[in-house]
Structure formats: C-alpha cells, structure tokens
C-alpha cells in the first residue's frame, strides 16, 4: 500500500467540533468527575459508620447549596456516562457504527440523560414534604 493511502487520524488542530467528538470527550470528563463522586460516596459511608455527629456534618454539607450543586452534577454525569457507556458497549459488539445512526444515538444519549436527571430531581424535591 502506498504511503498516501494510509488512513489518517483526524488532525486535532483543524477538526470541526461535532456530536461524536464532543460526546467522546464528555464521556471522559464525566468519568473523571464521577471518580471524585466515588470518593464522596466513600466518605458518606464512612461517616454513617462513624456515628451521628460525623454523619450530620457530611449530610448537612451535601444538602447545602454547594453540596446540592455537586449532587446535581453527579446525577447528570452518572446518567450521561451510563447511557453513553451502553452506546459504547453496543459499538463493542458492532452495533450502531453507521455515521447517521451514531449521530442519532448520540443525541438520544444527551436527551435521555437530561430527562433522567430532571426526573430524578423532580422526585427528590417532591419527597421534600414527606
């Protein structure tokens, strides 16, 4: 095969931003952010084991404005990483590789993760009074 016929990887400097590469880097970013979430989950579990006072401090922080904002971020990242992860598992077995289909499932992933996040928080706020 002649040298020029080789497939080239995209030249990042002139690569136009589109759904595929945006969602790809978002998968990474959400994954890294969720790793920090795993740390907080561990801290939360340890605080439960440490007794009421330690737990109350952690829970107060999580329910406060900054904690709640982080939780909102983690729920969206969780649903997004989950949906896009399933998309990746599909690709692993050869499903949905066609350009148009990959684009459609990409947008679907965004829509489903936004809907799930909103649904989660509607239920969370709905149970406020109970």
């Amino acid at each position: 095969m002649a040298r020029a016929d080789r497939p080239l990887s995209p030249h990042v400097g002139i690569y136009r931003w589109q759904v595929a590469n945006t969602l790809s880097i978002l998968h990474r970013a959400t994954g890294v952010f969720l790793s920090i979430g795993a740390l907080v989950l561990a801290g939360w579990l340890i605080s439960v084991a440490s007794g009421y006072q330690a737990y109350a401090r952690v829970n107060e922080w999580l329910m406060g404005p900054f904690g709640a904002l982080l939780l909102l971020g983690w729920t969206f990242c969780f649903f997004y990483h989950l949906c896009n992860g399933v998309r990746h598992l599909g690709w692993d077995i050869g499903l949905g590789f066609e350009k148009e289909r990959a684009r459609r499932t990409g947008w679907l992933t965004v829509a489903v993760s936004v809907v799930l996040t909103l649904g989660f928080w509607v239920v969370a706020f709905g149970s406020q009074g109970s």
Partner: protein
Amino acid sequence: MSLQSPLRRVMGLGSAKEGAGHWWAQRLTAIALVPLGLWFVFSVLGLDHGQYELVRAWIADPAHAILLLLLILALLYHSCLGLQVVIEDYVHGATKVATLISVQFAHVLVAVSSIYAIIVVSVGAGT
C-alpha cells in the same frame, strides 16, 4: 506457516503483556455497574434526604449491604481502570508513573474504607 496456536498468538499482547485484560475488565465492570448504579441512585431517593436512622437501617439490610459491597468493588475497579487510561494519555514522564501509583493506591484505600464502613454498619458496631 506458523506452528503457533491462535491462542498463543493473542495471549499477553500489548507493551505490558496484559493482552485484552484491561479492556475486558473495564467492560465487565461497566456491565455490572448498569444495574448496580441505577439501583443505588434510585434507592437514595427513598432515604428521606438522608435521615440518619433510616440510612443506617437501609445499609444494614443484608440485601442492601451485599449490593453496596458489589457496587463499591465494581465502581472503584472501573474508576481505577478509567483514570489509568486518562493519566496515560495526558501525563508524561516521571510524573506519569507517580500519578498512576498514587491513583491506584487511592482506589484501594477508598475501596477498603468503604467496605469496612458497610460491614461496621451491617453488624451494628460503631455508634
């Protein structure tokens, strides 16, 4: 013609001779995390904004404790594998190795601490 078996040819590939081990482990943990993650996220909704006694009782339930242990194992293994790839891509030189080692130690520490906490709450020790 090669006398090597197909298995011999594919085993231990890659620069670290681990073959498809990393790739496969990441997929296995991903599949496990679909039900475990959804279960946890929707269970949290039932915890009445983290009321202490309710949370303790919820974790202490044997079925929940087992699922939580599985979640922690799969989550931290998956997180460790994922961060490893990110570090390998963006961190270079001696810092790379140091970062990789720190991240792996941190994951083991976090996993062991969480598992310990779940067991303590389950057996009713602590306060």
